[in-house]
């Protein structure tokens, strides 16, 4: 089967993916620095009861109440995790796992109850469809844009705004919470702000484009950037670039690789996540200071070797 040509549809899908990737990569960098990388995954499972309750409350599948319900439960996930790990002195990963499995179980039971009334499939929560975004266009002034691009663009602007405004505080509380506390920047407040950011970003993104891409873009671009540099601003910039590149490359692979096997195309979100993994692997091998090659060829030894200036 011949590959289909790249159309404006594909451009919109890739652009929406890029907006989503960058809006995730920014809070994701802070999550990775705070050893909370799995938060996106936890929230994406945990929001199920929020969706179910929003449905019970309104009796319809409108996206706004669903969004609010999911975002509230997302924030609660972060709160419960924090409480269990603080008061119960449980490892944070375990606390996260306890919270999201329990919430997901509650959600499943609620949905089975709701299933008597409406088809609310858990599968459609996990797999949003970025391929369908260009079918849902909204007119905005002189332009016609996909609704998902507007949603993710708005979230991106919000995240950028928060990070720019509170950059100093976020940086300090990520690297030295004790000092931040002494200086009067409440790490608690910043923590919950960050968690709110992650919850809203996650929910907005997977309502519009699916959760797989969100989970990946919260972690992988930031991890890639951390292989290349250890400074916060470059980490944020590189993570955003990696996020964009993975979105574009992912969609490209989603419509170019399957034809090699005689299949028309495949899931773009999945491929975007996979593409970010490929970019991570490149950085893992070729990173200038800590890459496998640099390590193998004595990159680490260079610093302690005396300068070879005395030789004629």
């Amino acid at each position, binding site marked *: 089967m011949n590959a289909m040509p790249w159309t404006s549809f594909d451009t919109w899908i890739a652009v929406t993916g890029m907006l989503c990737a960058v809006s995730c990569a920014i809070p994701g960098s802070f999550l990775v620095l705070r050893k909370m990388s799995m938060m996106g995954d936890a929230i994406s499972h945990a929001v199920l009861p929020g969706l179910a309750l929003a449905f019970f409350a309104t009796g319809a599948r409108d996206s706004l109440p669903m969004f609010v319900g999911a975002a509230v439960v997302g924030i609660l996930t972060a709160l419960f995790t924090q409480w269990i790990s603080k008061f119960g002195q449980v490892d944070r990963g375990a606390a996260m796992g306890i919270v999201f499995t329990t919430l997901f179980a509650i959600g499943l039971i609620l949905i089975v109850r709701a299933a008597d009334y409406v088809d609310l499939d858990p599968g459609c929560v996990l797999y949003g469809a970025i391929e369908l975004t260009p079918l849902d266009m909204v007119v905005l002034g002189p332009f016609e844009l996909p609704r998902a691009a507007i949603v993710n663009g708005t979230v991106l602007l919000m995240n950028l705004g928060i990070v720019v405004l509170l950059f100093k505080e976020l940086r300090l509380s990520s690297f030295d919470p004790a000092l931040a506390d002494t200086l009067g920047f409440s790490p608690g407040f910043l923590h919950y702000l960050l968690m709110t950011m992650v919850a809203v970003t996650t929910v907005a993104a997977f309502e519009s484009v699916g959760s797989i891409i969100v989970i990946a873009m919260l*972690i992988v671009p930031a991890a890639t950037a951390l292989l290349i540099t250890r400074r916060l601003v470059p980490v944020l910039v590189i993570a955003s670039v990696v996020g964009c590149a993975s979105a574009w490359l992912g969609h490209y692979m989603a419509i170019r690789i399957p034809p090699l096997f005689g299949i028309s195309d495949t899931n773009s979100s999945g491929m975007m996540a996979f593409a970010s993994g490929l970019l991570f692997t490149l950085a893992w091998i070729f990173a200038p200071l800590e890459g496998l090659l640099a390590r193998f060829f004595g990159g680490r030894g260079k610093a302690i070797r005396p300068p070879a200036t005395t030789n004629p």
Partner: protein
Amino acid sequence: MFETITDILFLKDHNTRVVVISVMLLGVSSGIIGAFLLLRKRSLMGDVLSHATLPGIGLAFALMVAMGGTGKSLPGLLLGAAVSGAAGLLLMLAIRSTTRLRDDVAMGFVLSVFFGLGVAVLGMVQKIPGANAAGLESFIYGKTASMVFQDAALIGGVALVVSVVAVLFKKEFTLICFDDGYATSQGWPVVLLDIAMLALVTIVTVIGLQAVGLILIIAFLIIPAAAARFWTHRLDYMLLLAALIGALSGWLGASFSGIFSDLPAGAIIVLVAAAIFIISMFFGTARGVVPRLRDQARLKRRIGRQHLLRAAYEILEQQPGPLANVPVDRASLFAHRSWSPREFRRFLAHARAEDHLETATPDAIRLSESGFGEAARMTRNHRLWELYLIRHADVAPSHVDRDADMVEHILGADLVRQLEDELGDIGNHLPESPHAVQPAAL
């Protein structure tokens, strides 16, 4: 109704018995292996592995279709899942050992990238002409209620083997959980042991995923172990308890879902386990919240009472003439230390409840026999520590009061004897204060 409930709880019905027993065995094995994961701070490994199996399932299906089958053979899919789970865990360990990224990042990376790849592969597999991949995704949702005898026997057998292997490797796993640096320096093959531990997790996950579903197996690997941790500080008991809690939630949950048959069994088992976790978190005897708060409150009360007694003793010392247990003015006692009126009243009440003092006149208190002894002992401990700091730690006399304030309450008889020996010239006396004892600023 009651008859049905007891029938189900006590496994009268053959079908229920098969399901419940295999779920219980799964609970036992994941409780044990989960305890090691918790101590290694990798509780979310079940989550990671269950997502990482997805590309393997898709590829195994595609391969089996290419070889001319329907692709829906259970052993083939399980093998694919296990292989891709194993690839995920090796990748995670490789990232962990060759970069500075930490466990949580490596785990999140494997989870999201493998899951993405899996979704992409499934997206392709479903479009293979002539193959029917419908329902392949439901492979990851599980179907506890419709489990047949063969499934149950397989799960039970595998769970049993995993439990036995985990117990046999207890010493090695304990070592890498608590101090992998030491294990490395002693020549233990830490990476191999890590792989062995995670291989057991992979087996439990793959088997459990198919049998009881994604969410339950993730929960089974975390919740029983985390709940058990609240009841004990000893690893042996923790393993035993985690296994018991796993089995108990499996038994109760599977039985309940027999009663409320329209609800998903996996979800109910998770909720039972979560309820056990919450009870453990609050009331667990070793690390539970309530016992801990109670101990802290008790310590705070004792410290307050002992400070009150020492303050009274120091006031008595300042009286002219030989030391005698005369009534102490409440106002001067209050002024002797900086405490709030409420604290002061509370400490007075505690001391009175302990029979350490009594009301002499409305404005004054008098130490009891035992209270006087305790006050003298506290004051002596305080001064011994002060002298020790001055002589052996070169702390200025004006700075030792506050340090001794903390330490006086926890000096045991042994330590006091050591201090006496160390200081030499004290004997059984109560030394004078090395600094001026004066009321806190008024």
